[in-house]
Structure formats: structure tokens, C-alpha cells
């Protein structure tokens, strides 16, 4: 259970190696396979064509042990996809001249961290070397954290109490701490809550009707949604749909749908949310060197991944107890997102099986973006 919240998990290293071929398949067959072969209770997806036409599909059951139809385009916790939203807001602030990418974060948040060399850019592309607080939060015993409210400062305090992983800028090392700092940065320079910034600058701006940032203390999912499942430390599987996402905050708090994620990544890459200069900055990637899936590069809050049919797609992905999401948009504006109602490893008994389940999720994205109907 270490892999929570890290859309692009460290554990993904275990999952590498399986070749991803785009089979002659359909999206529905892929979703059915994720449910039947890989034991996810539900799989939900949306394809959005380059002309904007969206088709949502489902497989499985909304509630384990019962036969409850999965709501089409139902809401899920999208975990680390939140980072792409936060990064977009930060880049809007860069465009407005309120934030400078290559200035140290301590210029905006004096005393927040010790190392005054770490820049805003290094936070955005995970090269800061700051300790990842989720590694020290005790997510192995998720049941003890599940209903716990954290102040953002508490998350930062945990990170600051642990050693850095590398020198600033030296290498890519995924750390949720980076995005907690970017949330605080946004609040500092705008004077408004990060939730309100994301709501006004992105969600309302492009009309993501099913996307929201849960309020302080809100543990529910407000719209139609499939239940999400996770394993407790004793090994039992539990319905974790309701949880306090404050430990994710600017690194992973948002609730959305596969359709809204497509709309967001399409708008972002098309330039509807940012001037061209900032969009291009966002797409300057660093090598993720085994920290993510094979071939992935990480820009500023978005990742670029190769397709078996050639070309690449841009997205992020997200893992939080109960839900996994993967997907993104290709150069021609075709987008696909898939959501599963458990993290790989919840219903699989060995790391190998969990790895295969994750590979199957990525293969679904690949198939859909390579043209599977």
C-alpha cells in the first residue's frame, strides 16, 4: 500500500517489463478484461474524439458483492491528476507575472523549507529532492488515516523532518511534498484558497460539471459514483469510498470523471487554459528513469508517455486508496481516461499479479488511444 496517491508510483518499477502491444480489441473488451481477469470491481472509461464527441463505457459492479450497475461517467477520486490542475494554475500565475518559474520557492514562502536553492520549476517537475511526506504518513495502516484531517502545514512538517533524496535539479524523484508547496504558493500569491483557484481558473472556465475539490472535512463523493475499495493492514478488503482526502490536498484531493479528465487535458494541451509560452514550458520533460512506466517523461505537472502505435500522449494519472485513473490526450486531440475502483494490489495476491493488473490498465489506455473503438 505504499503506492497510494502517487499517480506515477514508485511501485510502478515493479510493473515494468511487460510489452504493451495494441491488440485488435475494443475498449469494452479491455474494460471487461480489467474486471474479469484482473479483478477490479469496476472499470469506467471515456473516449473523447478530436471533434469533442465523448463515449463513456463501464464494466463490473458499482458495489462489491452485489450486482449494481456502474454509473456511466461516474465520479471517482482522481488522486494525483490534481497535480496537473495545480500546475496549470501555477503556470497561469507565471503568465500573469505573479510567479517566476526559476525563482526559489522560499522567495514566496519564506522559511517553508530549508534549502533556498529549490525553484518553483523543480517543484513542478519533481526534481527538488524534497522528502515525500506520504512515505512517512503511515499509509501502510490506511485505516488509521482514512478519516483524519490534516492541515497542509502538517504535511510539510513531516517532509521537513526527513532527509532529502537528491540535490535540487539533480534528478527526477516523485514527491507529493512538491505539490503541497505549490498549493501554498498559489494561496500566498493569490490570497485565495487553492480549491477556489482551481474552481475558478479551470473547473468553471472550461465547464467541468462533475469536477470539484472537496471542502475541508468533506469525506463523501457528491454525485453518482462507484464504490472504491482498499485493503486494510490486516489484509481485509474495505469499502473506502468515504475518506478524508486532506492528506492529498494539492497533491491529490480532486474528484472528477473520466469524461471531465479528457476535457481538461484536451483544453490544457490545446492552449485553452494557458498562453503558448507557458504551455510549452509545461511540456519540457525530464527523464523519469524507472520512477514511472516505461518511456515516460515528466513535464511541469503533466507526463508524456509513448504509444505502441507511435506518438505520445499527455496526461498524469492518479492513485489514491479506492481509485486508480490513467489516460491523457494525443497530439491530434483524441483523449481517453480509464478509472478503476481499487488500486492494483487490492484484489491481487502477489506483486506480479498486481503488476500485470497495472500493465493491463496502461494497455487499455494504449489500445484506446491507438484507435480501439
Amino acid at each position: 500500500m505504499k503506492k497510494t496517491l502517487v499517480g506515477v508510483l514508485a511501485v510502478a518499477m515493479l510493473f515494468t517489463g511487460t510489452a504493451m502491444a495494441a491488440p485488435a480489441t475494443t475498449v469494452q473488451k479491455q474494460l471487461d478484461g480489467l474486471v474479469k481477469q484482473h479483478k477490479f470491481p469496476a472499470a469506467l472509461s471515456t473516449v473523447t474524439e478530436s471533434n469533442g464527441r465523448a463515449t463513456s463505457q463501464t464494466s463490473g459492479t458499482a458495489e462489491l458483492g452485489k450486482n449494481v450497475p456502474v454509473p456511466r461517467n461516474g465520479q471517482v477520486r482522481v488522486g494525483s491528476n490534481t497535480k496537473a490542475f495545480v500546475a496549470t494554475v501555477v503556470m497561469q500565475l507565471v503568465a500573469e507575472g505573479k510567479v517566476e518559474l526559476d525563482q526559489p520557492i522560499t522567495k514566496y514562502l519564506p522559511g517553508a523549507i530549508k534549502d533556498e536553492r529549490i525553484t518553483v520549476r523543480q517543484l513542478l517537475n519533481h526534481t527538488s529532492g524534497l522528502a515525500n511526506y506520504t512515505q512517512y504518513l503511515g499509509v501502510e495502516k490506511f485505516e488509521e488515516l482514512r478519516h483524519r484531517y490534516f492541515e497542509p502545514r502538517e504535511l510539510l512538517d513531516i517532509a521537513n523532518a526527513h532527509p532529502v533524496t537528491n540535490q535540487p535539479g539533480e534528478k527526477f524523484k516523485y514527491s507529493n511534498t512538491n505539490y503541497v508547496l505549490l498549493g501554498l504558493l498559489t494561496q500566498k500569491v493569490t490570497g485565495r484558497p487553492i480549491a477556489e483557484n482551481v474552481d475558478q481558473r479551470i473547473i468553471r472556465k472550461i465547464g467541468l460539471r462533475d469536477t470539484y475539490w472537496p471542502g475541508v472535512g468533506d469525506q463523501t463523493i457528491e454525485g453518482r459514483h462507484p464504490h472504491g475499495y482498499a485493503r486494510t493492514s490486516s489484509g481485509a478488503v474495505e469499502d473506502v469510498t468515504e475518506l478524508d482526502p486532506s492528506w492529498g490536498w494539492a497533491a491529490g484531493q480532486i474528484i472528477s470523471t473520466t469524461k471531465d479528465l479528457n476535457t481538461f487535458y484536451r483544453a490544457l494541451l490545446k492552449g485553452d487554459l494557458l498562453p503558448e509560452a507557458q504551455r510549452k514550458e509545461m511540456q519540457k520533460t525530464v527523464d523519469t528513469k524507472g520512477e514511472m512506466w516505461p518511456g515516460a517523461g515528466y513535464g511541469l505537472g503533466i507526463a508524456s508517455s509513448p504509444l505502441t502505435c507511435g506518438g505520445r500522449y499527455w496526461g498524469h494519472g492518479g492513485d489514491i486508496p479506492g481509485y486508480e485513473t490513467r489516460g491523457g490526450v494525443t497530439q491530434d486531440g483524441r483523449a481517453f481516461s480509464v478509472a478503476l475502483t481499487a488500486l492494483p494490489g487490492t484484489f491481487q495476491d502477489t506483486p506480479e499479479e498486481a503488476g500485470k493488473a497495472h500493465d493491463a490498465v496502461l494497455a487499455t489506455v494504449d489500445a484506446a488511444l491507438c484507435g480501439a473503438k
Partner: protein
Amino acid sequence: MIVAAVAALSLLIPQQLDQIVHEGTPGVEAHANGRNYAAGKAPVNGQVRVGSITKSFVAVTALQLVAEGKIELDGPASKYVQYVKDSRITVRQVLQHTSGLPDYPLAIGVNKIADIRNRHFEPHELLDAALTQPPSFPPGEKYQYSNTNYVVAGLMIQRVTGRPVAEEVQRRVIDRAGLKDTYWPKQGEQRIRGKHAQAFAVSDLLDPKSPVVNATELDTSAAWAAGAMVSTPADVAKFYRILLGGGLLAKPQLDEMRKTVPADDKSAYGLGLESFKLSCGGEWWGHGGTIHGWASLGGATDNGRNAAITLTALPGTFGTDPARTLQQMVDVIDTALCKK
């Protein structure tokens, strides 16, 4: 005879409220023993920002946690909030304003409403602003009102419950007392939800001559556990009546709440609860609250009489003598609690 007695009280309070409005305050709302009153530009029992009356709610929540063994009243506050460096400071001192923790509002510039009305503050930013200053005095040495104490109390409640202080106050106090018009604004919320008056404040509280502005919409994150709440005069009066009647705290904790230190010649401060002398003898228990645009006072007596008043401007905003207006507020409460 009973009818005559009720008439006497119900006439006296309207006269007092009319006088406050006559002297320049735009509106005033009050509650006395089950009856609501309003004068000037204010709805009957409209919602108001109750400012520091929030502290009573937070103190009750903390004392419930004391009863549950989750907080040690005479234990160090640093056990719950690591940013409090002086381990001699006890939870009791925090709740009683004898900790010596320096106050933060001026350090973050709350005096200028334009600078803070649209500004979200994290609770820790308030504490940071306080703690850049030296302690006001050694812990326990004396009473000196400091909002920082209640930011610490809020963080302490969050730490031991693992839940937001707003949620704990809602569940443990607002719901339990049945205060239907009372709430803790959500993060970023700047409007008042129910029917309410327009409230006014000078644009710089440190400059009485600065222009008066409409202060109704306000982000109260700068006040947080020291003063963020919205309520009505009827709910405030009901809250103190139920609290003093033992409906929110067990007797040992209510007794602790009422152990006071002298505040000034007319009042003494317990734990988030203040006692004031009554003209008819004895005392009443409650709290005051001032925030941009609103001045409130509310409380109850041991025999269940209860009252609250809110003005839609801080005393002095419209050229009145602040001390005189404040005394008029106290007089309204005194009338409600003393007169037959």
C-alpha cells in the same frame, strides 16, 4: 400583573435599541428571554458575524475533550501544538488568555479591511505571524487577551480529534444545542447565508476617521477559531442558556470554565467565558465579539435568563463615543437579565 411585567421589559429594550440607532449605529438586533428585537436597518434575528463569541464554542469543544481524557487541562499546550515552544504554557492558560502568547491580528494587518476581506489565511499563517514576536509575558503571570490562544486551541482540537475544528464545533456544540442558524463558514466563503443586515466598518480600524465601507462580505479565515462564526442573537442567547444549564458540559468541566481571573473592574475571564456583574446583584456569563462590521455581546444567568445583542457597526464607526455605545450594549443585556 404578569402581563404588565412582560410589557415593561419589552418596551424598555426597544427604547434602548432605538437610542443606539438614534446615535448613529445603522442597525441593532437583540434577543431577550425568548423575544427578538430589532431597530434601524437590521432584520429581526438576522444572521450576524459573532466574532470572538466563537471562542466560547471552541472552549466548550476543548473542555468536552478534557472530559473525554483527550486533552489535559493543566498539561503543556506544546504536547498538542508543537509550534508552542514554551512547554510551561498549559492548555488552561491558553483558554484563559494567561499564556503570554503574543497577539497576531495587527501583525497580519487586519486593521485594513481591504487587505484582508478577500484574503485566505491558513491557520498556521496566523500562528506564524504571532510567533515572530516575543512572548508578551511569562506564562501564568497575568491575563492579557490574545487571539493567538484560540488559534492554538483550534489546532489542538484538530490534533486530538483528527477532524477540522469547524466539524467538531458543529457536531459537539451547534448540533447538540440545536442552533439552526449558526455555522462556521466554509473555507473561502465570504457571504452570510441567511437573511442579514448590511454591516459597516471604517476602512482602517486604527484610523477612526478613515472612510466607512460596507463590510458584510468578508473572508473570516483571519479570525478562524478566534472568531470566524456566524450566528443570530437568538442562537447566541440559547447557546449560553444551554451551556450554563449543563447541556453541553459535565459539571466538573463547566466548573473549570467558570474559574476566573480578573479581566477589568467589571468582568472576569474563565475559559472562553466571561463573567459580568449585574446591576441587580449577581453576575451573568457570556462573551463579547467584535469583527469588521459587527459588535456582539451575549450570555445568560444561572437561573436561565438569557440575552444577546449585535450592532451592525463597531462602536465608534459613525462618530459615536465607542465607550458609550459599548456601555449601551451592556445595559441592554443588563435590562434583559435583571428587569422583571
